[in-house]
């Protein structure tokens, strides 16, 4: 790994290896989604527990709460799942009884879609604003780069000295940087 050719080979192999790893992940995940057993039913039930709030305790899901009503609701969840109801059907049952506030997160439909859409939109706007700022700052730089810096000559000398020192300290770094600095290299 210390030799340059070793590194180059390593670098070249990186992409295929990572792609292969990614493929392995995806296929492994795909095979995971198999038929449901009793174990999966309990996992499903716990997933539902975590999506339902306890109606009498502030900010606790029925999964967390140890009140009687939470326990009762947990039992109801399991009974309904055992009867073959789907996750959504179980959740709907509780929404009908207690209103939408019983859900730990707003449903992704109707007005409540707003809750889910605003964050990515905000991120998008923020990202675009950032891109614009970076662009204008770069343009500023190009404009000012044309003008020479005041006192640039003295600075240049100083920087050359620093450069020299650093090359002495980190010999392998120096080599790499040297390569970068070759014109058209």
């Amino acid at each position: 790994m210390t030799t340059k050719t070793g590194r180059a080979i390593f670098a070249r192999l990186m992409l295929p290896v990572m792609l292969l790893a990614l493929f392995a992940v995806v296929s492994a995940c795909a095979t995971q989604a198999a038929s449901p057993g009793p174990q999966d039913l309990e996992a499903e039930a716990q997933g539902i527990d975590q999506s339902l709030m306890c109606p009498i305790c502030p900010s606790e899901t029925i999964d967390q709460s140890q009140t009687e009503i939470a326990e009762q609701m947990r039992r109801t969840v399991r009974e309904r799942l055992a009867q073959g109801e789907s996750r959504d059907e179980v959740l709907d049952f509780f929404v009908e009884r207690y209103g939408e506030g019983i859900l730990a997160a707003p449903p992704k439909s109707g007005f409540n879609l707003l809750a889910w859409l605003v964050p990515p939109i905000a991120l998008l706007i923020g990202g675009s604003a950032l891109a614009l700022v970076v662009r204008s700052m770069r343009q500023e730089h190009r404009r000012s780069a044309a003008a020479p810096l005041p006192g640039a000559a003295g600075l240049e000398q100083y920087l050359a000295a620093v450069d020299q020192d650093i090359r002495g300290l980190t010999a392998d770094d120096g080599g790499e940087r040297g390569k970068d600095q070759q014109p058209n290299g």
Partner: protein
Amino acid sequence: MADLGYICLLIALALSVYSPVASLAGVRMGSRQLVLSARRAILLAPAALGVSTAGLVGAFVNADFSVSYVAEHSSRAMAPQYIWVAFYAGNEGSLLFIAFALSVLAAIAVRFAPDALRPSMPHIGSVLMLVLLFFLAVMVFLANPFARLEIVPPDGRGINPLLTHPGMFVHPPMLMTGLISFAVPFSIAMGSLLAGRTGDEWVDAGRTWGIISWALLGIGLLLGGWWAYTILGWGGYWAWDPVENAGFMPWLVITAFIHSIMVQKRRGMFRMWNLALVIIAFGFAQFGMFINRGGPVPSVHSFGQSTLGWIFLAFMGGTMLVSFAVFFWRYNSLKSAQTLESALSREAAFLVNNLLFLATAFVTLWGVVYPLISELFQGEIVTVGQPFYNQVNGPIFLLLILLMGVAPFVPWRHAGWASLRRALVMPAAAAAVAIGVLLLIGVYIPWALISYGLCAFVTAGILREWARGAHARHRRGESYPIAFGRLIAANRPRYGGYVVHLAVVLLALGVTGSSFYGIQRDIALSPGESADIGEYTVKYIGASARAFPDRTEATAEVQAFRGDTFLGTYYPRRDFYPSFNIASTLAAIRSTPLEDLYIIPGELLPDERTILRVYVNPLVMWMWVAGPLLVVGVTVALWPQRERSGAYAFSPGGLVAATGRRPEASAG
């Protein structure tokens, strides 16, 4: 005792009025004497508030139930060590604590201010004291901790049982100190702005105090998680509860700040941005205090509920209004020639960091206020809880970890793709290997794989950097330990930052492990019966109950096995407080680096059976290791450094900055 405390409170109030008036008058009239006396008032305030604090604590010690606050929050049956906790268990006491903490921080900030800040010190001190004035005025006029009862009750009501836990000795004070400490970087920035010092004079002190606030609040939050994990008895450490979020948001903004301030420190850029960030961070800290004092959202942390919340909201609104007015008043002198050489540079990377941290803060804020919006516009009360934050903030966190692995290796000014790729090949390989190994041992959940891959990526990058730096010094003849020590000493902000990044990786390990691979079971057992959970077998031996004046303690005896190996006997406890109708549980936790076995006892059923809730939580221990590591990193980053002594030598970014070369540009 209580009277003396009240008198000192009034003295502190007088000082906090006098100091800003005297220092601003002194500046206007050119009177050094006045400015100096204003400064002394700041240094004196902690003494007055210290006596005040002692007065209230003393009233608790003497069980002086004629003081309403003491009667509300303690009782004769309370264990004496909880007097300290009872002191800040309610609104009035915690306001006194906050005021005291602020006065101490203010005195330290004023006393040890660097020379660069001297011209703006009168203004900085004034802003600090005005913030203090708010708290003191609220106490004196609205929430007096020393208020007397006309009829003295024979015994107090007692302390909220959820607060009787070792974690409560440090978590709330740390969190309160953390939140109020935001006033210091804010005051430094605002004071400099008011004084017309709009350049970079405030940057070093602002950064130092920003990091101190960041660490105080961060540790406060971590301790809160630890407390929730060990006492609240639901096997978790963070619930995205409004009050938790209220503490989390300012922390996110200050995290953005302590990164972007480095750009101003090194390159003199982002002047306005850094000021805006520090103002917003203080705004969020005030918002946090508002939610804490009885905001409009329900929370599990409803300890100090009152109507004071709205006054805090007004305080926040007023501060933000004035701050941004000052900001725009000085707007023209804040403009700096902000030029960016390349979109691939450390400066730009810090901007992306800021974007992501602010996005998380915004998402969190949105989640907190959305129920109000929903109620207003569709008349329906909805809950925004964990599933929302996990799904929206989770991916942003992963992006942040990715950035944490890349950005430190992007040089200032301008980076080349080739050199960046070289720096990242090894970390990427480490990530691939980690993912491969995880797949082999049966970790298939994509989010978990991505998260662990990124953790490996960041860790490998940092270790590579350390190894290379130490190796380069070693070749000059230093032994490896010395080389490593000097490497770190040479650029403390950078290497302290790396240590903190490693702590964040540890947090990510724990969060990912417990979120995706935690197992949970509720099992009803008669004495002598056992049940399996994961690889463990749990055997319930029996329970015993003890009655105390204020509570009954039911202790279960549970044996744990893995296969046939006996792991130990555990005694999870459930305390019931009849006067509060609250049960608190003390989980029994068998913590190992790989996973925690976590047992919570339920109620004893009439037929001798009990319901045990058992969790297996992978990797959680690392989250508590992260705390001390974080402190180490912050200490390194803040350790005073001689100006620029070889600071550039081993940072690839610094190299390019120092030499002023643009490797790739010349190649193009």
